[in-house]
């Protein structure tokens, strides 16, 4: 009469401890007790190194706990006999979609899990169909992942995990490396699986906006769970989050600020809800039409000798092969010297190709060593050649000193920490300096390296002899940036400088860039797909779509053209979203797109209207 009791809980952690070998008594997970109910949607937030990812790996036995007990769907994880069953029922999607795929064709990759658990062939076929359908990727069944976007690849990774039919789905920072569109795609899929298929979801994330979607949020700090509750409850006490090196979601920041001015708004999570809340308050205060004055334009320094001018820039990869891809299609762009410039666009829009022209990593055809002027047939128009000048450098001229161009135009690529190579931080930072000036005396090198390491916020004496590989993720990125700015470039170009960092790390990197911009860097150019980042930092921005410069203007003006941006498949900053809805109800808030300015303007309108 032993009827099996179906456990109600998906996962139970009971005082679990874990430390990585070699880290001594430093626990990555330190006494965690947590119960996740079946069908629950739980989000886990915490700064880098807080133990979130370790938690995920403990659940399915990729790591084994040192103390305490973990039970998954009634099965004890420590019992290795259960491991196979647990892995069947718990799927994990990791951070980097590229590193989770085993096959070069989508359906073969999705088949990998079902093959491993020994399903018959026709059942595998059905599962592939179902899983690809669930993530909306059916039409890509025979495609090769190498040609898909980040978001699509990650959805394939989700499908690969789903095909085993897990009851629990864990996303371990699975959206960290994606652009906003890709992130939205993955999150939509996961939310739907939770609602419709009843799959228990644990979402580990750095994006506070994503954490808001869950039923419950858990905050981790130094291996411990420090807060737990509904997202609304968690984000209400902002001071607490700051102690744990986290930031508030922008929407909560705005609400809190408006409430200190006595607007008494409810804690909501969606821009539409906030907008209607504001409208309601305005209406009950008797304000029907209100227009805020335009903000002052952001202070912009002008350094005309570092203007960048681009005309007719066209570029095709693998020209004359069956795989030719046109990346740039006639770019015309003026980047005024002295600005903090933003470049916006999808993955694959041509942004990266564009910036690689700026320091001649990709040379204009006329500047190639083997370039010969083509003979033009009589009667046909002369071909249009691209032109590109950066400050006094003419990049269309073969005789330009490209080496000193590269010393003046610093370029930081995506995830620059992956390019570190030297034995010590000092050598790595000094690498560029020695390349550009082979005869520089040792004292000068030391001085420049010290200055560079200190400006990125690291302690020179502490880190200079360390191996760069022994540093933490955020520190590595700083060292990599130090290695570029060591030559004091007047133009600094950064591709997604804040990607993959936790909120605090992001903030610090942007602060560092502003500091460089104030001190000696004339122009800072950042490539980003985070619209809020562009809105909050840039004086001007350009939108690149299909290899063309579509709009180039101040962030206020660009993000005012919401409809056009949506048509390009781009997003707008949160503030613009709310302002857009308010404008339809007669409340025009002309902010500079930052949450602070927006809140100030709304408060001014509210107070002004209420007084009248």
């Amino acid at each position: 009469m032993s009827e099996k009791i179906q456990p109600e809980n998906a996962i139970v952690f009971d005082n679990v401890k874990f430390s990585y070998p070699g880290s001594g008594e430093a626990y990555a997970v330190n006494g965690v007790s947590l119960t996740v109910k079946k069908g629950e949607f739980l989000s886990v937030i915490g700064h880098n190194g807080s133990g979130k990812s370790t938690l995920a790996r403990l659940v399915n036995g990729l790591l084994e706990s040192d103390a305490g007990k973990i039970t998954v769907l009634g099965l004890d994880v420590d019992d290795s006999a259960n491991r196979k069953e647990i892995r069947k029922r718990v799927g994990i999607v990791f951070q980097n979609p590229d590193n989770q795929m085993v096959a070069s064709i989508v359906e073969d990759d999705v088949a990998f899990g079902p093959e491993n658990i020994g399903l018959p062939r026709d059942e595998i076929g059905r599962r592939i169909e179902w899983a690809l359908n669930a993530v909306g990727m059916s039409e890509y069944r025979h495609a090769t992942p190498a040609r898909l976007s980040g978001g699509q690849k990650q959805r394939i990774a989700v499908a690969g995990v789903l095909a085993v039919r897990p009851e629990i789905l864990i996303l371990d920072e699975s959206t960290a490396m994606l652009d906003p569109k890709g992130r939205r795609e993955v999150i939509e899929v996961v939310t739907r699986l939770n609602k419709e298929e009843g799959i228990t979801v644990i979402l580990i994330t750095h994006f506070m906006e994503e954490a808001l979607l869950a039923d419950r949020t858990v905050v981790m700090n130094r291996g411990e769970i420090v807060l737990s509750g509904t997202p609304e409850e968690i984000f209400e006490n902002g001071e607490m989050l700051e102690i744990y090196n986290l930031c508030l979601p922008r929407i909560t920041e705005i609400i809190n600020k408006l409430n200190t001015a006595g607007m008494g708004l409810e804690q909501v999570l969606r821009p539409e809800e906030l907008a209607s809340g504001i409208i309601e308050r305005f209406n009950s205060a008797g304000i029907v039409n209100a227009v805020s004055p335009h903000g002052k334009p952001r202070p912009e320094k002008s350094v005309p000798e570092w203007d960048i001018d681009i005309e007719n820039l066209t570029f095709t990869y693998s020209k004359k092969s069956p795989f030719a891809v046109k990346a740039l299609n006639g770019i015309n762009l003026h980047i005024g010297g002295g600005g903090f410039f933003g470049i916006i666009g999808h993955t694959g829009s041509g942004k990266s190709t564009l910036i690689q022209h700026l320091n001649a990593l990709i040379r204009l055809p006329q500047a190639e060593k083997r370039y010969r002027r083509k003979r033009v047939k009589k009667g046909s128009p002369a071909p249009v050649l691209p032109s590109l000048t950066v400050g006094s450098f003419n990049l269309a001229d073969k005789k330009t000193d490209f080496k000193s161009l590269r010393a003046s135009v610093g370029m930081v690529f995506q995830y620059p920490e992956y390019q570190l190579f030297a034995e010590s931080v000092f050598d790595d930072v000094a690498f560029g300096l020695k390349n550009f000036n082979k005869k520089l005396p040792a004292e000068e090198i030391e001085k420049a390296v010290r200055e560079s390491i200190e400006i990125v916020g690291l302690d020179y004496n502490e880190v200079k002899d360390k191996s760069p590989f022994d540093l933490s993720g955020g520190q590595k990125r700083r060292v990599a940036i130090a290695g570029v700015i060591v030559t004091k470039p007047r133009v600094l170009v950064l591709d997604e400088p804040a990607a993959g960092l936790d909120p605090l790390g992001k903030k610090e990197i942007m602060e560092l860039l502003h500091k460089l911009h104030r001190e000696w860097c004339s122009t800072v150019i950042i490539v980003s797909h985070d619209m809020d980042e562009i809105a909050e930092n840039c004086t001007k921005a350009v939108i690149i779509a299909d290899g063309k410069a579509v709009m180039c203007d101040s962030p206020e003006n660009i993000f005012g053209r919401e409809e056009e941006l949506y048509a390009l498949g781009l997003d707008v900053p949160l503030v613009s979203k709310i302002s857009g809805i308010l404008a339809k109800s007669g409340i025009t808030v002309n902010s500079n797109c930052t949450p602070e300015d927006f809140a100030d303007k709304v408060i001014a309108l509210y107070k002004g209207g209420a007084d009248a």
Partner: protein
Amino acid sequence: MLNDVVFGQYYPVKSFVHKSDPRIKLLALIAYIVALFLADNFYSLALGFIVLIMAVIASRVPLGRVLRSVKAILVLLVFTAVLNLFFHGGDNLLWQWGIIKIYREGVIFTVFFILRLFFLVMGSALLTLTTAPVELTDGIESLLTPLKWIRFPVHELALIMSIALRFIPTLIDETNRIISAQKARGADFESGNIFKRIKAVIPILIPLLISAFRRAEELGDAMDARCYAGSKKRTKYKKLAFGWRDVIIVLLFAGLITGAVLLNVYADTIFPEIYEYIRLG
């Protein structure tokens, strides 16, 4: 760009050859090589040439594309040809300069040798031009399956090949990115002597290796999490299908080998005067 090296081979069009079973194509190539080495006179070599041309036409790959593959071994070809030409002995002296003597037999042998190598390389190129790498590994795995009887880890080998293929584009992208980043920091990979150039590669190699290890570790975790536990009790979704095209290919290449053998035996009866003139050895 590095990309061209790897993907330059597969030529994506739809054709008879593209659609046939990779296993059959692999076997056909082996049969073709055997036939070329069986051939001991120009008649059987000509048969090989006819089959090659038929295959090229059926593949719808432009002839220039197939010929380009020979470029890679051109130096080797010229070098061995010259050696053969100068050192092949014979009876009919054609030309002499000092101790260097060229005989008619030497010329004929060299031409034969070059053509044979030429056809061989073009035949192999046709396989890689018409078969995607993934299909090729599937084909190899399937052909090796009998080796499971002697406990040869066929599944593991196939998985390794498949993963290697999967990561080639990823690692090429990564290499390009690292090269660009180091170039932006003033690294110079194009000038200096050989030692300087080897030294210049270190800033590329180290990050690349570290990243490859990191990827390997993450991939291992992901595979574990997706229930991978070796080849035991594992099923396979993909099945290669043997179709009518493959029957034609089998017949054609069986014909080729038979034809080559017959031509070897009866060569002296076909245009005996010509044969006498171009006979080898």
